[in-house]
């Protein structure tokens, strides 16, 4: 091949690079290793992780949940045709992936009760950022009321990106797990209101009040919904949401130390031209047959450049396809069933835990689904470390989410003593009973 190019060495291919810039003496990396050695290293690192669900019974949630992922979902979503494809720029050879995403969009649309759903964003946090961008763009007002019940990390990400967009974020505090919207009564120029449903403490917010607030302010209503709880709860669309977002990890994606996950995004028809990311639509081919293609492309960065609705290009297509397979596996009855089972297990575990001496609910009598926060008589971080010795990942210490000083969702004392517990359909009564007994011992 070199001879064909009239060259005598590979090095001549790189003459365009100024000699002074070339790396002298090679990279400061190790020599390459045979694959078995690399696998052995990776296994050793994996073994050094104690918080694996096959070693610790998982009661941690906070936006990342230990749900059942059946072999059939792994087999289908792991097919190399899906795993090793690129973005469907050539629709004729990407009908499989495009149709799967069309089905995913349909499922998200039905779940959230809104007619438009995109092909995915990076994660729940990025989805809420894009929702706020859409809302500010649509209303022309940059004030954003953010319930302190929105996941603390998502609020943090919103705040990071607001430095660029200039959006004015106003955090509205919680009381007993519910947002005190009246505390934001003085805010003006509000274009967007963001609420979690349930919020990150598992509490069910007063959604009618949020809609009324949006109507009064002319703001868009953005609901960050838990997609599993959505299997039994009224949909965001039904509550009047303009945009619904969520973290799609519970649909077939393992905990994965936090990524890659799946940002869910749905909105009303009025906002389709402001939609971030890719959208698959149905059309016809030259022979008049049904076909799928990415559409409304003029919104996107590769065409609209600095005027694009978002900078997203690579998204989380494989996780979206996985979610479509998982939802297909669950089906109409299975989705309702896991949502119900989670609610039952949550109720059972919460009642047992608040029976432990010194343990009390952190959010009063506000109804909870999906997860719940407790106040422990000891620092929650200490309890988590102790319970790991007993074989449990006990939950997430609120301090790890909101910092030692607390925030608008929980105060300083509650941040230290607060523990967020999630119980999925995978937890058995025996595991819960043993967990309660171990926690009883750990908080004495």
């Amino acid at each position, binding site marked *: *091949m070199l001879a064909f190019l009239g060259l005598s060495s590979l090095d001549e*291919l790189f003459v*365009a690079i*100024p000699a002074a810039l070339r790396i002298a003496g*090679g990279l*400061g*990396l190790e020599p390459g290793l045979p694959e078995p050695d690399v*696998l052995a290293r*990776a296994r050793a*690192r994996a073994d*050094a992780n104690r918080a*694996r669900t*096959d070693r610790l019974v998982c009661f941690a949630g906070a936006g*990342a949940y230990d749900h059942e992922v059946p072999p059939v979902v792994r087999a289908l979503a792991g*097919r*190399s*045709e899906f795993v*090793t494809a*690129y973005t469907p*720029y*050539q629709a*004729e*050879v990407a*009908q*499989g992936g495009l149709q*799967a995403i069309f*089905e995913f969009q*349909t499922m998200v649309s*039905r779940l959230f009760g809104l007619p438009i759903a995109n*092909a*995915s964003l*990076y*994660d729940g946090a990025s989805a809420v950022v894009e929702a706020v*961008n859409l809302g500010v763009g649509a209303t022309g007002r940059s004030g954003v009321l953010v319930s302190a019940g929105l996941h603390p*990390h998502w609020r943090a*990400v919103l705040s990071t*990106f607001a430095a660029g967009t200039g959006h004015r974020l106003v955090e509205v505090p919680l009381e007993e797990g519910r947002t005190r919207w009246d505390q934001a009564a003085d805010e003006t120029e509000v274009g967007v209101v963001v609420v979690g449903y349930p919020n990150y403490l598992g509490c069910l917010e007063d*959604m009618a009040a949020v809609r009324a607030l949006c109507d009064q302010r002319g703001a868009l209503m953005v609901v960050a919904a838990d997609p599993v709880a*959505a299997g*039994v709860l*009224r949909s965001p669309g039904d509550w009047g949401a303009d945009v619904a977002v969520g973290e799609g990890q519970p649909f077939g994606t393992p905990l994965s*130390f936090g990524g*890659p*996950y799946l940002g869910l995004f749905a909105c009303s028809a009025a906002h389709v031209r402001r939609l971030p990311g890719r959208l698959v639509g149905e059309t016809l081919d030259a*022979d008049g047959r049904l076909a*799928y293609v990415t*559409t409304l492309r003029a919104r996107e960065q590769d065409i609209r450049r600095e005027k694009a609705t978002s*900078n*997203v290009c*690579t998204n989380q297509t*494989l*996780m979206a396809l996985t979610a479509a*397979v998982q*939802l297909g596996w669950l*089906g*109409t*009855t*299975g*989705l309702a069933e896991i949502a119900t089972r989670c609610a039952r297990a949550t109720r059972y575990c919460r009642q047992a835990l608040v029976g432990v001496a010194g343990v009390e609910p952190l959010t009063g009598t506000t109804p909870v689904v999906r997860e719940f926060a407790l106040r422990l008589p000891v620092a929650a971080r200490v309890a988590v470390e102790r319970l790991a010795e007993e074989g449990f990942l006990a939950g997430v210490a609120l301090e790890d989410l909101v910092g030692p000083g607390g925030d608008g969702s929980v105060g300083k004392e509650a941040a230290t003593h607060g523990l967020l517990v999630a119980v999925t359909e995978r937890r058995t*009564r025996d595991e819960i009973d043993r967990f309660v007994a171990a926690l009883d011992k750990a908080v004495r």
Partner: protein
Amino acid sequence: MTGAAAGGRASSAPLIGRDSEPTLFELSRSGRSSWQLPTTGIEETPLDELVPPEHRRPTNVDVAEVSERDLVGHFTRLSHRQYSIDLGAYPLGSCTMKYNPKACDAVAGLAGLESVHPAAPASLVQGWLATLVGLEDALCELSGMAAATLQPAAGAAGELTGLLLMRAYDAARGEHRRRVIIPDSAHGTNPASVTLGGYEVTTVKSDARGCVDVHSLRDVLDTDVAGMMLTNPNTLGLFEEDIVEIAAAVHEVGGLMYYDGANLNAILGMVRPGDMGFDIVHLNLHKTFATPHGGGGPGAGPVAVAAHLAEFLPGPRPVRLQDSGDADQPLRYGWHTPAHSIGRVHGWHGNALVLARALAYIEIHGRDGLVRVAERAVLNANWIRKRLSSTFDVAFDRPCMHEVVFSASALRKRTGASALDVAKGLIEEGFHPPTVAFPLIVDDALMVEPTETESYETLAALAEALERVAARAESGELAGSPRTTPVRRVDEARAARTLIPTFDARR
């Protein structure tokens, strides 16, 4: 055509038949199901007692009702209607669709990595922290930078993170610069990210050689410029030979140099962005470091920075802990948030399993193997350039790096067949097409990036296929291409005009 030739030509026809696959919703039959959930022994409290009535969904979400067998049939048939790198070459310019070692998949599938909760205390995730710290070290060495964040989930997320770092740096020195310079050949994500970063885009033109015109650049440089975003090699596959002068000029007015790592594959182990004068670098791990692209993601876009920007990086960052010598503190790794951090840019720690794959890829290749990646990628691209230079016009006729941009402009004027027609014709030859219509500054661009993983035989088969397509253009055959695919050319205008984004919108 002989079906028995060596090379990576894929069968372009679906395995059996060309019938459409119904949607899962059409396959649904009431009463069928696939799900099985564990026996828990928890009492079956009625839902009415668990969820207040005003919060209850009136009816179940209508997903679909199918058996496991039908679910498997459906998605398997869909998979047969999808091209993939495992099936054959994918010479999409600017996308670096290389074959990915299956060993990296095996790493990402380890239970001890895959089943770890992201909020678990540092003491319980030492293996993950070691993985992330090891990757950060390697990426800093490869890019010539001092520190990195692994949080950005994709290249565009990395870009925006980098621009926010620019802002923070500016603010810390009491400045409020407003403009960021981008060449006209840049990826569309660059200008879109600049807007989201709160800056205005200033475009600088390419010169006759396809590189940044240094004189034009100097004309737009002043102390209002926060920085310049550059891909090097650029999207024309050309190395910006004046990079030292460019960086010096931007630094002279107090701006920062941002390296878009989309094309790092071409220079792995040859030259480092840091040594070229860049201050901020994002790396597309899904391109260069072999994460399968998943049909459009996931990716990962870590951002590495020079020492003077490390204090602004997103946090918390995985770090090595100082050995305190205290037997009660045996932890080797922990988390640390830099003093003037711009904050989180991801819900957790980034696309962790993608990061683990990238580390495995780097370990497999090592210092010498990564250099060979660049050498082979550039050799393959130049071979294609020369081999096809009499068939298509080369946009900038000089040695290229990892990709080459042809123009179908002359062919179109002569035959009416555009780059898009060539692409559709190539599909019939059993190959995924190159990138078409990008970069925007080349009329009717056809951008070929063969990557290092395709064999000589595959390259030869690809070149022959493109020659046949060009010959067919002369006879006006391409307008009807492709004819052998599950569907023929799709009507994109109709999709936008009559928007049907869900099955429910079909009726």
